[in-house]
């Protein structure tokens, strides 16, 4: 058969069921490829080869017995290193958690283990998920498999590069302001942020609790649908998870575009890469050709989303990261008293971007500034929600670019604000809670992938998956893959 690391998850499980391949053989192929090529991509912080082989052997036995656990049994996965894994170091890309070994699994890890996946390891990220390039990892730079001189995006750059570089079949990332969809676009793969509350956050190390969501990276839309189904659903361990039924997303993928109303996002093209604009316009024509009706959609407040986000997310982060005090776990630096110990610990353990956001958030919440910054941003958040609600009275999905440009070079965006502007199209859906997906829609003149961003109604992931699938099946972008060696 063809190189199994090129296959999608659903193609792999087809091969497992037919006997054309075994989970152990595929796992060995992946571990071999990681050993050979991850030195170039640097997607992984920890490779759990022992656990992977044990899970693969158990999966082999289930297929031999004719009793696989479901459509992901035996599929090799990579987890962003912000998802807690019992007995396996979980660093969040930070020195402060460099040697932290969680005593529990995140709910998504538990659920996927129950679905039979093979855990290949933990992948790199911007420290505490703060960034858009994975350059803020305390440990290593991750390369974009399409051009090793460029960033994979972030903050979930490791899991995105792992899937794009065929170093994992699927992976999980987290998205607080675009951290799945933007690296998905930069790496030419599917990346999805489910509705806030759709997936349990238990065991996800918190950045901004009202915005964080876990979601899949995949080589095609069907795989994303299968992973979402496996991880979604209410969880008593996360009081913000929502008890709504989880549909069989894969079953409704083929329903097509007919009857769907597509809202075409009107956006400010200043600073946009013209290649991205061209690709998105062409993608909308494809959707029209598939039978969708289209109409222009404006989100008048969305332009202010980024400003509101850079109050709300740092404010929540400053509170969440207060727990890293050197007392119960993580790094400790010595000091003359408790406050000195805490202050030195945090100075030594956090990188520059994390410090910047803690400072910004602490300032925005501090006495005398709360109403002017945090209060104001929360009200703007309401306006953004209203914009989406108004748009979804007329359309079923909103389509636009995932990012203003394609993957940039390492070191190219030194100014924090320039980095933040990457998230301008993705942040509004985090503030409103709506689900979003990025699906490959072409390449720039410099041969770098471009992403199409689809946003849907709350808890209606089925529709954006269906539209993404219809688009994907009508185009051939997914057949073009990076060559690492």
């Amino acid at each position, binding site marked *: 058969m063809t190189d199994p690391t090129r296959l999608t998850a659903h193609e792999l499980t087809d091969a497992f069921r037919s006997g054309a391949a075994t989970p152990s053989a595929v796992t060995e192929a992946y571990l071999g490829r990681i050993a050979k090529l991850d030195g170039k991509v640097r997607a992984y912080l920890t490779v759990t080869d022992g656990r992977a082989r044990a899970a693969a052997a158990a999966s082999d036995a289930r297929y031999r017995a004719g009793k696989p656990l479901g459509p992901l049994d035996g599929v090799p996965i990579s987890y962003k290193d912000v998802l807690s894994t019992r007995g396996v170091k979980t660093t969040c890309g930070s020195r402060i958690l460099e*040697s*932290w*070994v969680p*005593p*529990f699994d995140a709910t998504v890890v538990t659920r996927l283990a129950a679905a039979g996946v093979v855990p290949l390891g933990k992948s790199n990220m911007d420290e505490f998920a703060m960034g858009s390039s994975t350059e803020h990892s305390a440990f290593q730079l991750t390369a974009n498999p399409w051009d090793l001189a460029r960033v994979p995006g972030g903050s979930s750059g490791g899991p995105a590069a792992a899937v794009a570089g065929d170093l994992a079949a699927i992976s999980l990332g987290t998205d607080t302001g675009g951290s799945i969809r933007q690296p998905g676009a930069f790496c030419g793969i599917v990346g999805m942020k489910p*509705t*806030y*509350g759709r997936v349990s956050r238990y065991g996800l190390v918190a950045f901004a609790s009202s*915005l964080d969501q876990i979601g899949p990276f995949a080589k095609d839309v069907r795989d994303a649908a299968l992973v979402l189904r496996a991880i979604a659903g209410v969880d*008593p361990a996360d*009081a*913000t998870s*929502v008890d709504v039924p989880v549909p069989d997303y894969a079953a409704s993928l083929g329903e097509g575009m007919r009857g769907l109303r597509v809202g075409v996002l009107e956006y400010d093209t200043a600073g946009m890469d013209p290649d991205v604009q061209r690709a998105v316009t062409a993608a909308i024509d494809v959707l029209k050709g598939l039978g969708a009706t289209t109409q222009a959609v404006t989100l008048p*407040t969305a332009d*202010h989303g980024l*400003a*509101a986000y*850079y*109050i709300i997310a740092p404010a929540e982060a*400053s509170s969440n990261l207060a727990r890293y*005090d*050197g*007392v*119960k*776990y*993580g*790094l*400790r630096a*010595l000091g*003359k*008293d*408790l406050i*000195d*110990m805490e*202050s030195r610990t*945090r100075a030594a353990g956090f990188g520059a971007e994390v*410090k*910047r956001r*803690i*400072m*910004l958030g*602490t*300032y925005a919440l*501090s006495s005398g500034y709360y109403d002017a*910054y945090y*209060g*104001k941003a*929360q*009200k*703007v*958040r*309401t*306006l953004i*929600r209203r914009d989406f609600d108004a748009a979804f009275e007329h359309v079923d999905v909103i389509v636009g670019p995932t990012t203003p440009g394609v993957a940039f070079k390492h070191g190219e965006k030194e100014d*924090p*604000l320039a980095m*933040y502007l990457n998230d301008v199209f993705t942040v509004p859906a985090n*503030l*409103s*809670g709506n689900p979003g997906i990025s699906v490959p829609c072409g390449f720039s003149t410099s041969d770098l992938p471009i992403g199409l961003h689809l946003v849907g109604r709350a808890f209606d992931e089925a529709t954006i998956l269906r539209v993404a699938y219809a688009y994907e099946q009508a185009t051939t972008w997914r057949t073009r893959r990076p060559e690492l060696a």
Partner: protein
Amino acid sequence: MIERKDVEHVARLARLALSAAEIEKMREQLNGILAYIEKLNALATDDVEPTSHAVPMVNVMRDDAPGPCLPRDEALANAPDRAGEFFRVPRIIED
């Protein structure tokens, strides 16, 4: 505009020991970011309710039933310093 003393005050609140160079850089960068955030003031929000959470929710309650919890040794396993069954920290009360 944020001044140096504001940065020092916020760093104390946030328990971050910053060097003099870091304080100056932080002052510049925070002013740049806050200048961008000023654009929010162009939006009229006087009669708008704030949103703290994307999904409207009320408190989620469960039965107050005892269940298993993390064993003490596992809870202490990641401690930077411990004394027997306790986390050890620097002295905070003078003799």
